């Protein structure tokens, strides 16, 4: 069962085509990390899903119900946290959430307890001042509270961690992870470690198209190989070893990178040929490494591979 389905979506602003035949499926209950460079079309996609923009072509379904631009009944399923949430500055956080609660038709007798719950969840329980005096981080926290208020089936967060301090970011990611299973989450970001931590599905948007999609494990298998990292005692030793390795025809010369005393080589796993080559080089040069380890490929590596010009 899919919570969100996007089919053949096109969108341009003037002569600039932002989305080009975008297809995207978010299964119910998943945390979907939506990754892409600035200007890749992440925000536009989210706004289209929420009926805030008009698509040029294609269709979007939430809960198997078609999304319409303008008057958007499907928004009763959604909660949205914009990248820069805007509020009524003359209200206090409690008054603002009360307004939201009334709009989402939370029964009157539950409103107060639900608001208390969320305010303490985002750390604004004791804030009595009006939103006018809020810092960006506090607004982001209130944004989280309003997005979760009506227990949406589909939570859409646009770069939610960008304005938070490290502790706030940590807490927010834990919060999202705790919703796994109950709420489907579409979560855009360019902070890749965040995605690695909590998302079970990842989609990489590039040039208005989803270039790669799947679980993190699948993507890693598909797009990246593990790396071998050799740490030497000095940069000089590392340089000597790197030079030697580059002369080995069984290794891809360009893929060997040196950063101070650390050498990184893609780990071709057939016949352990990378290991063999490294150990041979070390023996011949009588070099003793401090550490040799196999490193799992990061999402960053996958991302760069996916978006690189072909």
């Amino acid at each position: 069962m899919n919570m969100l389905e996007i089919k053949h979506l096109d969108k341009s602003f003037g002569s600039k085509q932002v989305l080009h035949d975008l297809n995207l499926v978010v299964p119910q209950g998943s945390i979907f990390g939506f990754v892409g460079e600035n200007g890749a079309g992440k925000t536009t996609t989210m706004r289209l899903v929420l009926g805030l923009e008009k698509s040029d072509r294609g269709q979007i379904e939430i809960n198997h119900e078609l999304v319409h631009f303008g008057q958007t009944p499907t928004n009763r399923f959604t909660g949205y946290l914009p990248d820069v949430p805007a509020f009524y500055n003359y209200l206090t956080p409690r008054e603002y959430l009360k307004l939201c609660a009334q709009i989402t038709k939370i029964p009157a007798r539950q409103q107060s307890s639900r608001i208390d719950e969320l305010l303490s969840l985002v750390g604004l329980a004791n804030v009595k001042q009006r939103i006018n005096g809020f810092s960006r981080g506090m607004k982001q926290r209130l944004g989280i509270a309003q997005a979760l208020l009506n227990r949406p089936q589909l939570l859409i967060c646009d770069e939610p961690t960008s304005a938070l301090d490290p502790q706030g970011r940590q807490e927010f990611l834990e919060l999202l992870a705790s919703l796994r299973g109950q709420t489907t989450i579409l979560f855009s970001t360019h902070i890749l470690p965040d995605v690695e931590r909590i998302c079970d599905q990842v989609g990489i948007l590039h040039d208005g198209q989803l270039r790669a999609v799947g679980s993190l494990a699948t993507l890693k298998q598909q797009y990246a190989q593990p790396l071998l990292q050799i740490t030497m005692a000095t940069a000089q030793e590392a340089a000597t070893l790197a030079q030697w390795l580059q002369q080995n025809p069984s290794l891809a010369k360009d893929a060997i990178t040196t950063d101070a005393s650390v050498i990184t080589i893609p780990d071709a796993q057939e016949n352990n040929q990378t290991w063999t080559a490294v150990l041979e080089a070390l023996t011949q040069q009588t070099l003793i490494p401090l550490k040799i380890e196999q490193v799992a490929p990061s999402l960053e590596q996958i991302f760069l591979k996916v978006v690189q010009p072909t």
Partner: protein
Amino acid sequence: MILILFKKELRETWRTWKLPIMLIVFVIFGIMNPLMAKLTPEILKMSNLAGKLSLPAPTSLDSWTQFYKNISQIGIYLFMMIFAGIVNHEVSQHTLVNLVTKGLSRNAVIWSKWLILLGQWLSLNSLSFLVTWGYTAFYFPDNHSPHPVLAFLPLLILGCFIAGVIVFASTITRSNYQSLLIEIFMMIVLYLINLFKQTVHYNPLSLMSKNLDFLQRQNSVADYWPAMLITVGLGLLLTFLASRIFAHQRL
């Protein structure tokens, strides 16, 4: 839903000082109208014109003349100016995004704004009217103005139109100034139509310009029912159009 938003609008207009400022202005009008009527002859006497003019003693009519002049020449434009951004300010600040993405109907947004404007028009003018009425009765206990309430009612009805104009202009524009320009343009159109004498019974403008007739001759009000109907109809139509346009706007 409209009621929920109406409460939000009420809080907004109060806490952002719009309503308090307008309250002060309209009460000042109320106090000044009879006072100016009373003092004008005195002021003229003190000036160089003393002796050259023979001025009749002021009456309650002079006070009401001041009232309708202040509302139709200053009050209405001040009202338009202060509320010119009622829709486009929210659009440009993106404050509706959170609410609309929770399922809030856009129609409710527009109609609640029309209602809050109408509500403020009714209460501000009524307040000013009551203050003027009280002081006028105190300063000029004459019988020159037999029908003050009847004369005032058309002005209240005009509120439907004014609120519609403001909501419509604010919906189709991106800034306060553009909005104000459209509002004034619409008023100019009414004044131009008013140049044709035969339109007087149909023009919404008559509801704020013929009040002195209504004040003195009860029967004359009845002739203006088409203008009242058109005023209400236009107000509703403009608001309806605004809601149709707003339904397809980027927020």
